[in-house]
């Protein structure tokens, strides 16, 4: 076993990359849940985003267009969920699970002709002085734009929820939809918009896997990342910065255990592979032991009767 082969700078840099998919999906789902909707279809929206983004990138040759189509694809699938749960008042848990199954099937169907292709690579940031800095340059300043976009999105979501009227109304809808309705806020419209936002974010997260992390298309390639994102939101106590922390933790342990495997550490591979899931959840469970609680209307069906 040779731990000296592990380069800390590269390790930290790949941590940011490994965390980005679940970070994007998680922050989207956080907004959805703060609006009082439980969408368990994150996995389905991610994989749909992954294939939509992959196809668009192959066809157009531009990764940026790929990400845009990925967001549209995720949002499209989320719209189906919004239709089911907000207008026909279907059960959110069942609809979300169905959405995941549907997304997995749909993506395999769409992706049949794309297996084995290689997408054009997503450009990396290259800022003359900063990117050349030793250590810091590698860790912080030589990623693709989506990494920064993800972190920026967390900050934006946090600021909007905390400081703006729109954020306050969104939280109010998630907290008590009857009261929000009585005060004249459009509960269903706000929730549909939140669901679409969540779908777009999940789509971006999926496309990040198929375009940057892997990068190629295989069936079921999100491999449970959507479920981790869901767990992340709960154990992050619905707080944006904790989602970031959780995602980094998960990404970090993932990368570390891969490095350990490569270095031949004498721990069975199975244990190393499960470690990111276990460590992330244990840490977040401990952190979520404080007083914070779920949005009170989470998962409840709203109908503006009488």
């Amino acid at each position: 076993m040779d731990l000296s082969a592990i380069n800390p700078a590269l390790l930290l840099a790949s941590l940011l990359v490994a965390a980005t998919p679940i970070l994007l999906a998680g922050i989207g789902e956080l907004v959805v849940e703060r609006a009082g909707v439980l969408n368990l279809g994150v996995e389905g929206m991610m994989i749909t985003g992954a294939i939509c983004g992959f196809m668009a990138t192959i066809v157009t040759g531009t990764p940026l267009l790929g990400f845009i189509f990925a967001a549209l694809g995720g949002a499209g699938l989320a719209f189906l969920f919004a239709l089911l749960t907000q207008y026909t008042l279907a059960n959110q848990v069942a609809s979300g699970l169905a959405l995941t199954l549907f997304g997995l099937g749909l993506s395999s169907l769409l992706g049949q002709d794309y297996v084995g292709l290689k997408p054009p690579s997503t450009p990396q940031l290259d800022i003359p002085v900063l990117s050349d800095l030793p250590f810091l340059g590698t860790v912080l300043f030589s990623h693709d734009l989506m990494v920064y976009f993800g972190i920026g999105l967390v900050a934006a979501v946090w600021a909007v929820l905390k400081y703006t009227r729109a954020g306050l109304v969104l939280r109010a809808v998630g907290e008590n939809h009857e009261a929000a309705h009585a005060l004249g806020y459009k509960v269903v419209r706000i929730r549909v918009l939140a669901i679409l936002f969540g779908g777009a974010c999940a789509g971006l997260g999926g496309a990040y896997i198929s375009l940057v992390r892997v990068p190629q298309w295989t069936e079921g390639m999100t491999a449970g990342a959507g479920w981790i994102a869901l767990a992340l939101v709960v154990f992050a106590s619905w707080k944006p910065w904790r989602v970031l922390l959780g995602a980094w933790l998960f990404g970090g342990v993932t990368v570390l255990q891969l490095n350990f495997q490569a270095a031949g550490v004498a721990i069975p591979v199975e244990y190393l592979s499960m470690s990111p899931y276990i460590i992330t959840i244990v840490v977040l469970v401990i952190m979520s032991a404080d007083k914070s609680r779920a949005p009170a209307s989470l998962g409840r069906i709203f109908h503006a009767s009488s």
Partner: protein
Amino acid sequence: MTGTLLKIEGLTKAYPGVVANDQVSFEINEGETHALLGENGAGKSTLVKMIYGLVKPDSGTMQMHGTPFTPAEPRAARAAGVAMVFQHFSLFDALNVAENIALGMENPPAMRDLAEKIRTVSEAYGLPLDPFRTVGDLSAGERQRVEIIRCLLQDPKLLIMDEPTSVLTPQEVEILFETLRKLTAEGVAILYISHKLEEIRALCDAATILRLGKNVGTCVPAETSARDMAELMVGSELQTPKSAGAALGEVVLDIAGLSMPSPSAFGTALRNIHLRLRAGEVLGIGGVAGNGQDELLLALSGEQRCAASAIKFKGAPIGQLSPNARRALGLLTAPEERLGHAAAPNMSLTENALLTGNLRKKLSQNGFLNWSKARNFASEIIEKFDVRTPGPDNAARSLSGGNLQKFVIGREVLQEPEVLVVNQPTWGVDASAAAAIRQAILDLAAGGTAVIVISQDLDELMEVADNFAALNEGRLTEVRPTQGLTIEEIGLMMGGAHGMEVAHV
């Protein structure tokens, strides 16, 4: 200052199967306090929802200051100067006071300015509030202040109040009335909905009475007796419950040093409660909602266990016994929440009868249910307690609140309990059903059962209870005979004015 503010003519709103409002007309003058009276289901809420823009009328007109007033949504109503204090559903527990208030305003100022404004206005009207406290941690009275301040910050011309005093102590009610009188002196009109007729007589200048959606009369409350108003609401004569006045027997329930944490985050822990209950006694427990009433019921029913010797039933410690073990002994309970706690909403009345009656009525054998026996038991309840329903196969949720309450109380009464504990037995129940339920409680006590009635309706407690005690922040006051208690004494037992003071603008 005496011009007509709001004129309503021929307002009609029908829902499938029921006409909620049928040709309702009345006027409210500036600076007037106008009461809207009626039983549950008389159409009061629908009417105020139309004024507040939540519901669109099918026909009829409203005029504000002589110009047509058709609010399409609450925002439009608020812009026109209508503000509403809701009975339920309008605060957000997890948000703080300032955020809650900002949500009810059209163009709220920046949070810091708003917080300052809340402090000034709330102190000016004698309703002090800290803008940064989380609403979930506030008492019921404080929550209502939040709603009132939210309305006052919009400089309303018409303030609608839906059952505002149901959660206040008598002293708090007096302070609220001072605030309201101050507002009417400034020219604000108030539309006041309440069941409490004495309050209406003290506060309101005019009253409109609704029955089954129709306007059945108007009166000047100060010149009409409460009984006459009640009969206008019900449309028939009221029966006053009578106690047979049986002699009290042995001590059956002895609670000594009962302390218990609350199972819910925003609940109240019970602290060192002592009381003794004798056979044939009706003990009324008053107090403002959220002072430990629900927790006391949980402790007595056995849903939450406490120290074994804290509760003794005929001398035997039962604090650790399960609800069924207590039922077997003869300690029965009927919780406040009808749908979801006392009854399972989607199950039939027969099934609901089985749920608590199984043990004492022997409705099952060797683990198999005896459906015919259960159905007979349900039918017996329906018959003896005049529950209006097509039959025992109907789902509990299909019954109106009053009918379901009669069923829930009847189910326990017919099991011949030794001790019966009821929480809010007549909450949201119309006057005639309430009278029937109170009579059943009195009859039960006359037969030697000890009854604890937990209620926020002081008139009800005065009517049925032999002795009275109040819960205040999880502590129980000493038990005193009801006879001779004045309303001031009761108010002090309930915790006085909770730091409220009379408005000093």
